[in-house]
């Protein structure tokens, strides 16, 4: 049996509330296969966003390991983790987190500034990705001139532009109307199926979770298996 694409073992995390440690994740063990679309569900405070953040390398675990493509990211220092994140992870946020002073094209181009790439190449690649998410006509629009659904599609293009192996999405449809949410979810599904990206999505919405291959529930920091 081959190693999972992402292997999580004995992962625990607590937050300090004053003097008291509040456990958020307790001894999480989880395998995610290559090309998998995983939905993490659970009530508020169950620890699903925390688990997503740990997998994405933007938070630190107290205990346990997160092995991704053969690298235990819990052992990486800050600079190495930042570089690893830039190469391997694409982020999709609930509130899009686009840079308001940059156009859609520039927002998508932004992560490529860190790569050794000519300006022309960067622009071509960003345009290609915006075309992929159906926003070729909106490249020069600023985030404030786009609808919520369009902004989230720009965010997906930005997440994809560096060709990461993992896309993490925290409530990507939480701020969208039903039609826009459907568009965004279909796009994420397409990214998963056509480009083989591992997609890990945190959601409250069962309809959104239905787009995933696997749904896992977290309750009080403990991961439960869920039939799908």
């Amino acid at each position, binding site marked *: 049996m081959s190693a999972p694409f992402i292997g999580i073992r004995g992962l625990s995390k607590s937050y300090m509330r004053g003097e008291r440690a509040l456990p958020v994740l307790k001894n999480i063990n989880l395998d995610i296969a290559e090309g998998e679309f995983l939905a993490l569900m659970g009530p508020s405070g169950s620890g699903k*966003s*925390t688990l997503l*953040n740990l997998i*994405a390398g*933007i*938070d630190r675990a107290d205990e346990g390991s997160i092995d991704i493509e053969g690298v235990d990211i819990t052992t990486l220092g800050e*600079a190495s983790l*930042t*570089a690893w*994140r*830039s*190469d391997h*992870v694409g*982020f999709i*946020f609930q*509130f899009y*987190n*686009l*840079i*308001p*002073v*940059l156009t859609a094209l*520039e927002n998508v*181009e*932004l*992560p490529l*500034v*860190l790569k050794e790439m000519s300006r022309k190449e960067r622009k071509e690649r960003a345009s290609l990705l915006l075309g992929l998410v159906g926003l070729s006509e909106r490249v020069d629009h600023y985030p404030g001139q786009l609808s919520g659904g369009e902004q989230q599609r720009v965010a997906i293009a*930005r997440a994809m532009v560096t060709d990461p192996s993992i896309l993490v999405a925290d409530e990507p449809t939480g701020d969208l109307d039903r039609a826009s949410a459907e568009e965004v979810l279909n796009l994420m599904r397409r990214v998963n199926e056509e480009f083989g990206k591992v997609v890990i999505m945190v959601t409250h919405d069962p309809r959104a979770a239905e787009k995933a291959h696997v749904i896992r529930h977290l309750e009080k920091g403990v991961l439960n298996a869920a039939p799908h």
Partner: protein
Amino acid sequence: MPLLIKMLLKNAFRHGLRTGLTIAGMTIAILAFGILTTVVDAWYAGVEASRANRLITRNAISLTFELPLSYYDKIRQVEGATKVSYGNWFGAFYKEERNFFANFAMEAQSHLDIVTELVLRPEERDAYIKDRRGAIAGRKLAERFGWEIGDLVTLTGTIFPGDWEFVLRGIYKGRDETVDESIFFFHWDYLNESLRETMPERAGQVGFYIIEIARPELAGAVSKRVDSLFKNSLAETLTETERAFAMSFVTMTEAIMTAIQLVSIVVIVIIMAVTANTMAMSVRERLSEFAALKTLGFNRAHLSFLIFGEAMVITSLGAALGIALTFPAAQLFRSELGQFFPVFNIKPATIYMDIAAAVIVASVSAVIPSYRVAAAPITAALRRIA
């Protein structure tokens, strides 16, 4: 334009009113700093203009006491002294007391031979030296009162009472911008002859001697030789370099100058606090954006660059406007207060200090926001909605 530069430029103007007010504050601070620094420089202009190869000999008791003219020949004999001149502070005004300016009675020929930074046309110089009632005035002084060569100028004496008539024979220019062009010189002989008739007890006395020495390093030795000549006489002398002599006037007001310098620094410190506040507010509002950039792989150096760059845009614009306004402000200062500050030039060093102030203000104001952004956990910062 590189994307990050575009980003920081646009970020700087996201809150137009706040940025505009901060730039206005920076402009005023740099203007105030530039003018106050120039005031201090102007105060020390006499010291700056002094020449290293000139000594001043005066009465050891005080400047208000005079020295006999008979010292002239003795000083000329001193080893190391190449030229000697002498004169008196005349202390007169033109028409009204508020039209006050520096005026001296000087031994004309030797004075112009020594003080070579006063540039006169040869024919004007000759005319001045030949005419015992002749006088020369600096360009700025002549412009101030509309004097032209050949004009009869009447000054009212305060130390030497009465109306004194002179014929303006020359208008000198300074060899460089440090030379005071607002002084009036006339013949010491003219003064002395009048005194012989009206106040004979004051005739034959000079206020100071100017000694030109062969090399600046001889200053100490020549000073000692001159002063030792008149040791234990009725009028002992004090000889010092022209710089030390000029400095002795300035030091009387040094506390005021120090206060002005302090105020100019305080102004910069205040604008530093204002800019730091602007940057802190601006960055706090955008903490979630910086967190998003972190998730994209931007590291501490990139984020500090964005914050420092933004601060630099604000302070540079303010400084550029402030520097641009310093020149007309200085011109206004010159025209209104020229009699107090005859040399009021903005030095290149002042402009460099303005630029340095802008860089320091930007750097200091960016330090804390940069640290906060770097230290803020991504997950917590992402949750912040501005």
